[in-house]
């Protein structure tokens, strides 16, 4: 194996340039004030104070987390049954379903989200259809519903594929053993299948929660310009306000919140495993 070790270096260089350096820059900007030029840097905690002491910003933070949690929950509720059903099919049919589910991700996310505006608009597809039955137009656009719908639509494939993978990797003889020992199908599912598929659910949650908590283009397109999320604030700090220091501080706060939530998810996962073994 040793002779391959050198092959790691390009990757190391790559990850330094594209991961470590930008992260360090964010750290540097977040703890300083005085504009964007390196010569004027001064250490300060002002940016953090400004965010954490302002009621409006905290409300936006709460809203972002709430929307992300709701999106993730909906994705689990929709994604798990879908993955479970697909995993039951024969190999050939499975591949076809996986292809169908990943197919939309071949198209650019912005285009797909933009298509939803055409569907949800007051004179869009759904309302025109409802109008045929004499139903008054329903406002879908620029609501929580539209934003969560857009997020679920965009991120659901990540959830399904993760759960599906862990379900197919599962050893089916364990379920046979459980039924042999007298477990009914329901018990088989709750005691065998579900615990064994938890790693898939956990990584699915990670893959859905992360992009939805920091997303700014889906809320912008489906929630309208007054639908402010944390991603929107960060974007505006960099692009319109030109306050890179404040923008970096908010990014850092988000990163810390995400790390904590990931840590908790992992803990819960481990706790459940232990419980399962003890039971």
């Amino acid at each position, binding site marked *: 194996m040793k002779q391959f070790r050198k092959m790691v270096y390009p990757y190391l260089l790559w990850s330094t340039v594209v991961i470590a350096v930008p992260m360090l820059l964010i750290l540097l900007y977040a703890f300083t004030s005085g504009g964007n030029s390196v010569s004027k840097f001064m250490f300060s905690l002002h940016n953090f104070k400004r965010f954490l002491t302002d009621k409006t910003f905290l409300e936006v933070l709460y809203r972002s987390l709430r929307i992300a949690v709701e999106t993730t929950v909906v994705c689990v509720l929709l994604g798990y049954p879908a993955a479970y059903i697909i995993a039951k099919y024969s190999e050939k049919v499975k591949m076809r379903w996986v292809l169908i589910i990943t197919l939309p991700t071949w198209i650019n996310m912005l285009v797909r989200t933009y298509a939803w*505006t055409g569907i949800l608009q007051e004179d869009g597809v759904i309302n025109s259809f409802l109008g045929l039955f004499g139903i008054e137009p329903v406002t879908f656009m620029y609501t929580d519903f539209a934003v969560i719908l857009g997020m679920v639509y965009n991120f659901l494939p990540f959830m399904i594929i993760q759960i599906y993978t862990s379900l197919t990797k599962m050893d089916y003889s364990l379920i046979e053993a459980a039924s042999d020992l007298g477990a009914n199908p329901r018990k088989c599912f709750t005691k065998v299948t579900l615990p064994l598929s938890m790693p898939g659910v956990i990584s699915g949650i990670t893959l859905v929660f992360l992009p939805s908590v920091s997303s700014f283009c889906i809320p912008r397109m489906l929630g309208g310009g*007054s639908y402010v999320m944390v991603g929107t604030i960060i974007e505006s700090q960099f692009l319109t306000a*030109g306050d890179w220091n404040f923008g970096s501080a908010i990014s850092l706060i988000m990163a810390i919140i995400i790390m904590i939530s990931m840590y908790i998810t992992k803990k819960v996962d481990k706790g459940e495993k232990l419980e399962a073994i003890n039971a």
Partner: protein
Amino acid sequence: MKKGWLVSLAVLALSMMCLTGCGSKEKLKIYLPGEYMSDELVPNFEKQYNCKVDVELFDSNEMMYTKVMAGDSYDVLIPSDYMIERLIKEDYLQKIDVSKLSNFGSVTDALKVAPYNGFDPDNSYSVPYFWGSVGIVYNQNNVPTSEVEAKGFEIMKDTKYSGKIYMYDSERDSFMIAFKSLGYSMNTNEESEIMAAYDWLVELNTTMAPTTVTDEVIDGMAQGRKDLAIVYSGDAAYILSENEDMRYYTPECGTNVWVDAMVIPKNAKNVDLAYKFIDYVISYDAAMGNTEAVGYASVNKDVLAEVTKEGGLYDGNEAYIPRTGFAKDEVFTDNEFLRKKLSELWIKVKASN
């Protein structure tokens, strides 16, 4: 056999690169806002001057600023007045010798006097591209003209029209209507005036359920989805030509009038061609095609006269030509304090529902 393939592929790739890269044609790189130039303008210029033009588009002046400050080189930029003022201050632009532009004489005189020339009084750094104002587009079947004229921007806070208005998602334009409505200058530095405007907008946002969008307003009003909207004059000209129920009004309390202009950065690579391009854009034929396609007011006085004369394309279109000689109309000036302040407050306004 395999190697032969690789070699021929490499040769092919190299020759392709030569075709695009080391051709004898001169190159010009321009950077301008999206949907802001007729599709024919660039190809016609390329044909006439046997050159290749690279066009890049930006969403906002601020985005352009971030990019050019990162060191990207362009030959011609088309930013707005206040941004040009900032670029001049930061010593980023070359001086332009207007005597080298054969068509400069046809630039309309309105742009050479206040308030339009404030950011660059003698055109020493910029040549106008389009100009316009900001106003209210309203559906005259649902909102009486007399009411719009009596109330001005205050009509955006009339709860009769709650849920039926579009606001424009830009802190400068939104705060502008609040400042103007309250009778202040939109370039104010007074903390108390800024906070009054902030309260004005928060009240609007909490009582009127506005839909805050950017370019979606064009389609939305052309389709008649809402009754009132804050719109740029050129977009309004398009809306009015699409939907005859819609009308445009610039309030008596004054509004923002603006000029977008062409400038040449100091690090431009092909200054001669940049001059030719600028001169071409303000020439009669190019300016005519451009204003027909985009809808903003041309800077060429002959074009203006032609499209607004009886039977012309914009005859009777009240949004097309911006108001001139109205003392309460102002151009934005570059003001770092106000810019940062408004950016933070605008996020708070939008989050206040």
